[in-house]
């Protein structure tokens, strides 16, 4: 029984991280219909900021990392994506890959291509004992931070004018502009939020792995993308749900697959995702129009 509870906590923790990755991808897709693969580079950059500053107090390191995430997202939007506004989806996607490779190349030039170990704070690798269960502090932090962010994001999207404009943009961007919504501001805020989410996801991810390298964000953004597709592209709630489901499924398979098959865990996960999309191509909370746009 204890083992089951432990797996549930692990599943929620991994799902929380995947939800953050998915929300970052989902916010940008919502307003620009762009799957921003540069999101992985934002995560990687957060890792390098941690690497460079980790010797300082966490109260300094974390805000710096988050600011770096926001700054790189805003800069890439201003320099790479704003001039391409209105371009077709494939052009935007190529641009997002180009931005990702450019940031990777800059980091390789500065720090080399090898992985760097981050001497992460010792308290995050500790565990606390609750009713006989050893719960890693990092799991609790991941769950708590993600829960706060999801609630905060929900409040932002439902209670503020900019949040409302972002939801409207996800449904009909031109109509938002015809009503007077500032397109430039909405997109810039979406990028800033995606940069913030990427940086927070980066802090949680690198607190687990304690290693950063130039290609480290690529897998993370793919997970975020898949989670967004599961939830339904264009749906912020769907992105959060997709992230949690993906984390839960990954942990469940990790726990239940026999030894000989556990190496193929990700194949089973993505097989399940394909099966879901066959029956519900628009994702769990998406609508058909989004599904058709993706095809």
């Amino acid at each position: 029984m204890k083992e089951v509870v432990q797996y549930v906590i692990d599943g929620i923790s991994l799902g929380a991280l995947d939800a953050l990755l998915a929300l970052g991808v989902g916010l940008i897709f919502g307003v620009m219909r762009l799957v921003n693969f540069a999101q992985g580079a934002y995560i990687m950059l957060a890792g390098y900021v941690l690497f460079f500053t980790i010797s300082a107090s966490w109260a300094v390191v974390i805000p710096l990392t988050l600011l770096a995430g926001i700054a790189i997202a805003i800069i890439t939007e201003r320099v790479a994506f704003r001039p391409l506004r209105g371009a077709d989806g494939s052009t935007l996607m190529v641009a997002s890959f180009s931005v990702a490779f450019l940031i990777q190349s800059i980091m390789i030039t500065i720090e080399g291509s090898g992985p760097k170990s981050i001497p992460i704070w010792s308290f995050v690798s500790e565990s606390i004992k609750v009713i006989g269960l050893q719960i890693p502090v990092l799991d609790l932090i991941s769950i708590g931070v993600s829960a706060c962010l999801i609630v905060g994001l929900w409040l932002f999207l439902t209670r503020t004018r900019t949040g409302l404009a972002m939801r409207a943009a996800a449904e009909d961007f031109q109509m938002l502009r015809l009503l007077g919504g500032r397109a430039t501001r909405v997109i810039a805020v979406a990028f800033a939020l995606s940069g913030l989410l990427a940086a927070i996801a980066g802090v949680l991810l690198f607190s687990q792995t304690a290693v950063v390298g130039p290609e480290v964000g690529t897998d993370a953004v793919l997970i975020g993308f898949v989670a967004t597709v599961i939830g339904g592209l264009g749906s912020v709630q769907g992105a959060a749900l997709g992230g949690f489901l993906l984390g839960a499924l990954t942990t469940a398979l990790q726990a239940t697959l026999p030894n000989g098959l556990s190496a193929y865990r990700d194949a089973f996960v993505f097989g399940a995702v394909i099966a879901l999309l066959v029956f519900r191509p628009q994702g769990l909370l998406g609508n058909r129009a989004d599904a058709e746009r993706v095809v």
Partner: protein
Amino acid sequence: MLLQVEQLAVSYGALRVVHEVSLEVSEGEIVGLIGPNAAGKTTSLFAIAGALKPDQGRVTLDGKDITGRSPEDIVRAGLAVVPEGRRILSSLTVEENLRLGGISRTKTQELHEEIEHAFERFPRIAEHRHSKAGHLSGGEQQLLAIARALMAKPRLLLVDEASLGLSPIAVEAVFAALLEFRSADRAVVVVEHDVERISTIADRIYAVSEGRSRYLGARGEIDREDIEAIYLGRRPEMEEATTVGGQP
């Protein structure tokens, strides 16, 4: 003159859809824009509202040149649009749609008051205040689209296909809302394919056919043969009669 459109030309890529559209709208007027499908009415409206960049021509609102400006700037200049098909944001609630309509307003208190005023003015949508806008009937959605556009406090309202797909009762409600909006310093342009319907509320009517505009006349003065010619696509008369500003 509240709106003046001079020799507007608009293309989609290499394809020119609007060749030469000119019209004038004064304060206190309801101006109808009729024409067959694919004549260039909606494209002209979108170019006036800033959603499409015109290739040539000039649009002035209350004497200020708004040609090629962004839609969000044009809303702030005093022009609001009710597009074809309503384009209600169906995943948002009725109230959220109204809040969006007032997104260009800076004072929150004023916005709240205006939302309450909109619900008083349109009681049919007030009862669905917290429902998803996509759940409303076609007529209710059209009223919501008008109420939403009015949240920006425009001086000029552009309404595309106001009566399309609506029951006669719903059309009556929509036209009543437009008549109520029209006042000494405000005006309405209504795009409509149904000539009979537009003749009931428009003070003056223009026609658009094959991307060219023509002033048809004031209500009651319009020649039925002219209308038949427009809908049957007799171009030579259209070109002869096109004038800057459209007024004969």
